[in-house]
């Protein structure tokens, strides 16, 4: 009897301990779960890394893009009037500075600046894009940037609000009024992902405008004021001049880059003795920190869900 009692007590004692253990367990993570999650991550990385461009995760990317792309576009549209305010103020200020400088000799400018407004700026951008289409003799689908990848991801990509419905396909050239922006990587129905030329993995064939020499432009993966491209010339005997402009030399059938798009200008040249080639640093014409309206080069006569700017400047 006494023995049974003791057994009972110990049993209860043990049960209580086990109970507390379980309580503790709730705060302590299960090893198995953590290991499973980490293995899941490594599996994803391996699948995507080995798969390359036709990785098994492309359908998943596409699906997530179909869902989140329109949401991104919606948010971007909602915040655009607010985010455009600093631009507007800046361009007004710039205009007013101009007026101060030129007031004595040009009173017309004053009137022009007084009527300038946000809408007018936007219109000028579209005008610029139309002019670009005319000058370059390519048809363009206009689109807006609705998302930029964070620098923490160390790749420079953007989402635009036009996709396969607008006639956009992968490996099309993307540009704006200033010059080359990048190329289309993948599309969903209503959005597309663009690889910017400043991305560390971007390589563009370039031609130095003055000497027609060929080279390759590599991105540095840095955005903003330090966004630069490195030009490596094929012919090691030529030295590009400072301020020479660089244009794309284009690929066969225009994919991924059509020819003759201005990219940037040479800011400095240096040569390495060991590699016996000259490297030039190119400052892109495009300000990648404030991308907004862009155009995607499409074949003339493309069916699209929006107006296509044809090469003669007309809308279709």
């Amino acid at each position, binding site marked *: 009897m006494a023995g049974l009692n003791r057994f009972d007590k110990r049993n209860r004692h043990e049960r209580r301990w086990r109970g507390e253990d379980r309580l503790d367990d709730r705060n302590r*993570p299960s090893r198995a779960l953590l290991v499973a999650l*980490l293995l899941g991550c490594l599996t994803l990385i391996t699948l995507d890394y080995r798969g390359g461009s036709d990785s098994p995760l492309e359908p998943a990317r596409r699906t997530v893009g179909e869902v989140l*792309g329109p949401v991104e576009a919606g*948010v971007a549209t909602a915040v655009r009037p607010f985010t455009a305010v600093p631009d507007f103020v800046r361009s007004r200020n710039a205009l007013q500075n101009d007026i101060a400088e030129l007031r004595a000799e040009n009173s017309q400018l004053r009137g022009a600046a007084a009527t300038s407004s946000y809408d007018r700026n936007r219109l000028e951008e579209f005008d610029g894009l139309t002019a670009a289409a005319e000058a370059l003799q390519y048809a363009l689908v206009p689109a807006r940037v609705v998302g930029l*990848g*964070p620098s*923490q991801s*160390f790749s420079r990509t953007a989402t635009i609000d036009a996709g396969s419905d607008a006639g956009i396909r992968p490996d099309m050239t993307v540009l704006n009024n200033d010059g080359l922006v990048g190329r289309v990587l993948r599309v969903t129905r209503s959005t597309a992902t663009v690889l910017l030329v400043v991305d*560390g993995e971007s390589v563009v064939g370039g031609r130095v405008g003055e000497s027609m020499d060929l080279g390759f432009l590599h991105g540095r993966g840095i955005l903003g004021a330090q966004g630069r491209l490195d030009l490596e010339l094929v012919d090691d005997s030529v030295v590009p001049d400072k301020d020479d402009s660089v244009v794309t030399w284009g690929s066969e059938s225009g994919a991924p880059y059509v020819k003759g798009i201005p990219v940037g200008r040479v800011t400095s040249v240096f040569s390495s003795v060991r590699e016996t080639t000259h490297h030039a640093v190119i400052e892109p014409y495009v300000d990648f*920190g404030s991308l907004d309206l862009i155009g995607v080069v499409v074949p003339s006569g493309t069916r699209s869900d929006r107006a296509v700017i044809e090469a003669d400047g007309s809308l279709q």
Partner: protein
Amino acid sequence: MSVFRALAAGLAVGLALVLQVSLFPHLAWHGIVPNLCLLVVVGAALTRGPQFAAVLGFTAGVLLDLAPPADHVAGRWALALVIVGYLAGRVRQDVRPTAIAVVVTVAASSFVGTSVFALSGLLLRDPALSVPDLLQVILVAVVWDIVLTPFVLPLVMRMFHRLQPARATA
């Protein structure tokens, strides 16, 4: 209830992701934006512990890896955020964390998260960037995340606290 909880957590992560991609680039410094998804994961870790946070970290990471305009090798952010969720959950005590503790946890999590992502990139040679460049980005990201902490963390922590099962049954 648990479906509702999962849905709410998923929505929080989705909202964080969309804001991070579409709104914050306008305020970015050299393209570096506050990592809102990481802040949500840290908030979950501080209120709900490492297990929940690791799962949420995995979900948020996979979304970050797949949502446009991401183009890096998928699974890298997932790996970084699972580790962040687990580590941040470990510092949680049963008492409510003080403001200083929260800020320190966010700073450490941000540093660890972005570093793990950068290191995985170095191993896979995904970005061709130098270590000083990486470090600069990591440090600016930490500062951004700390700046956003007072605005985001109280909201996130209150939400996860409300959704706690113990409170729901009590």
